[in-house]
């Protein structure tokens, strides 16, 4: 395991959490694409309802 210097540790804590953001964006993209598929690919082709 790579040991970080105290300066490097402080810098890592201060900077934006890129990994967390990547996970959040992946979830957001999956959720939006899933919803769009359900609405446009599944719901609307089954016929309008009112």
């Amino acid at each position: 395991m790579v040991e970080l210097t105290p300066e490097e540790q402080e810098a890592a804590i201060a900077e934006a959490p890129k990994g967390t953001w990547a996970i959040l964006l992946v979830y957001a993209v999956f959720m939006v694409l899933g919803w769009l598929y359900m609405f446009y690919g599944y719901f609307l082709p089954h016929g309008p309802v009112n």
Partner: protein
Amino acid sequence: MHIDGTEKKWVILSFAMAFAMMGILAAYAINKNIHPPSNVETIDSTTLHLSEEFNEDNIGIKREADGSLRVTMVAARYGFFPHNLKIPVDTPIKFRLASADVLHGVHTAFTNMNTMVVPGYISEVNTTFPKVGKFPMFCNEYCGLGHDYMWSQLNVVSKEDFEKSMKEGDK
């Protein structure tokens, strides 16, 4: 109140997604009139057989004076009447349903047709079936011991076949 920067961004993103989805639904509801069925019209469930519309001789599919199609059905423990329906593909159809006894639901599998049939009220659903085929209609509100067996069949046929069957008087 302090909210962490990352958390704040995720909250904004979550709200943006929710508003975008709601915006799409609202646009379709306003522009294309696509929304959950809603109809407030009362009827006496105990005397359906005496009413003009839900009388045994009048249920089934009918062509209105303006050429549109209307299906009148009765839901009663444990079946939908008429039990088999033949309807044309890609044609707007108005379904009107009434319960003769308790709360029922009607869900046509593999389509968007789904509504409750509340005793004392007439349920109305306007829809179109874009695919030819046989679709089961299930009761999806528990209505008693025979609920599992309460179903009917919707036979979506081509427009030509439907016109032929209407001429032959096949409901």
